[in-house]
């Protein structure tokens, strides 16, 4: 395996990490806290969407993010031939 491809592998990894972490921050700090006033108009069971994200939605998104990253990386590992 050449250094070039290791570099590419790492760059691809950092890229997908960045995307996932942006979503991670968006659903928790964003929808759950900072942008909650903006979501106040969307009612969910007696309260608003921001409250739902703070107490349910962010956690469910976290699970999806980890399994998506796992799926993506397993594919990437094979593509670059670095899997165990």
């Amino acid at each position, binding site marked *: 395996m050449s250094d070039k491809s290791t570099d590419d592998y790492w760059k691809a990894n950092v890229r997908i990490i960045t995307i996932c972490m942006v979503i991670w921050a968006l659903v928790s700090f964003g929808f759950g806290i900072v942008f909650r006033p903006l979501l106040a108009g969307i009612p969910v069971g007696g309260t608003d969407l921001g*409250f739902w994200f703070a107490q349910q939605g962010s956690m469910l998104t976290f699970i999806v993010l980890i399994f998506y990253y796992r799926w993506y990386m397993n594919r990437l590992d094979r593509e670059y031939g670095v899997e165990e």
Partner: protein
Amino acid sequence: MDQFVINLIFVGASFALYIGIAIWARAGTTSDFYAASRGVNPIVNGAATAADWMSAASFISMAGLIAFVGYGNSTFLMGWTGGYVILALLLAPYLRKFGRFTVPDFIGDRFYSQTARLVAVISLLVMSITYVIGQMTGAGVAFSRFLEVDNTTGLLIAAAVVFIYAVLGGMKGITYTQLAQYCVLIVAYTIPAIFISLQLTGNPLPQLGLFSTHTESGQPLLQTLNEVLIELGFNDYTGMHAPQNTLNMVLFTLSLMIGTAGLPHVIIRFFTVPKVADARTSAGWALVFIALLYTVAPAVGAMARLNIITTIYPDGVREQPLAYADRPDWMRNWEQTGLLAFEDKNGDGFIQYYNEANPPEFAEELGWEGNEMVTFNQDILVLANPEIAQLPGWVIGLIAAGGLAAALSTAAGLLLAISSAVSHDLIKNMINPGISEKGELLAARISMAFAIALATYLGLNPPGFAAQVVALAFGLAASSLFPALMMGIFSKKMNAAGAITGMIVGLGSTLLYIFTYLGWFFFPGTNMLPNTPEYWLFGISPLSFGAVGAALNFAAAYLVNKLTGDAPAEIQELVEGIRVPKGAGAAVDH
């Protein structure tokens, strides 16, 4: 059957199971003892991680924390789960690839410095020992409530059980008992929650019930809750209220997230799986198992709060409240523990529960002379749930076993982190590198026994500041270990001087900020500023400072690294090695 006998059967059966597992999973090598020989199935490790992570605080206290604050304490939910995304994406796979046994192992080797290793060992010991005190006292309380033994006896029984499976089995024994403990605690937590959700909303899933229609009032549950709370002069449930503010909420959540990711007893769980890819899978499953409890907790909190109010005001808050003589059995039971107390201030024989500081305008008219539910310990919520929902006695027995499982599983994980830091990092890597495999295994067992003795002693004689110190553990992990681990993986060039300076700056600034408001070493009266929001820097509470300390750690490390030159070439090569999954065996030879 007598409730005491039922509790005894449930707790006794669960303990017999843990000891049986311990005998089956004895450790024969240091690799068994520290990392279960890296042969743990990722899903099993996920469940073990969930039990390891969810302490007595998660099981007993969290629903109460949310119930009495509402939206403002969503920070605990997001903070204590969001850390797993960081673990899965930024730390666990690479630390597993590195292939060592402890967190200081990585920091010492990656930053080619015994000083860095020592700083990491000290951080680890301080945070793990303080954390374990809370678990031991929690186990003692659960014993005394459900098994009618005194606190001391309860704590000694708990210590003896942990001793058997932790000293005998090390990580291997702990892993499989944690799996069993997870099953016990999740069943115990969810069964009462399902029944309460059914009773209040007709929806068996508490996660959906929280946002469903309240059967009795015909409108959404949260809307009903908000209305009665406001009528009684309390803050509404779904809004944000002082002392909470947006910046503090963000920083506290972030501190809990990166603190979680930096806790050594959680990180070492990922050293037990066979492959790098398994570490990612395992973190995902850990979060699934944790979220099973964490998505139920806010529902339990809101429903229990509403339940208490409707129990006291069966016909609405302006009508005749509950007569003290007619109070349900669960209130009588918990009054005996002192965790619940009433005082008939106006002598009318009825219970009035409202916010004295902001009384409703009809309070005077109705002759109310103060809030009469004078004590309501938040921890009652979960423990009394089965009684409030009028569930059969075996559910109460299950809750007793569940609370103990939560406390013991976390205690065992922490004790392993402590003993491996002593036997592996201090003895093997610093004091006596020539120690034999057998000698190290014996040292590990002896350190474990000492750690249990110390934890038991501190549990029996808790320092007055135990509660603050648990929060300190998160601040320390967030500001010292987490940034060092991150930079160790993501910055090839980071050198020893940078990392050490960073850890000291992060640790120092966080301690300084905490001591400023809570007193030097928590001695009462030695704080330099009152611990109230108007004195906090930008409204940041001392408990939220871990995230700021982490930022200072990163900044100081980069500055010093720029001034002192990059890490040597062989270290940069080592970092390149941990970035790819292939060849997990080879990394050990570096």
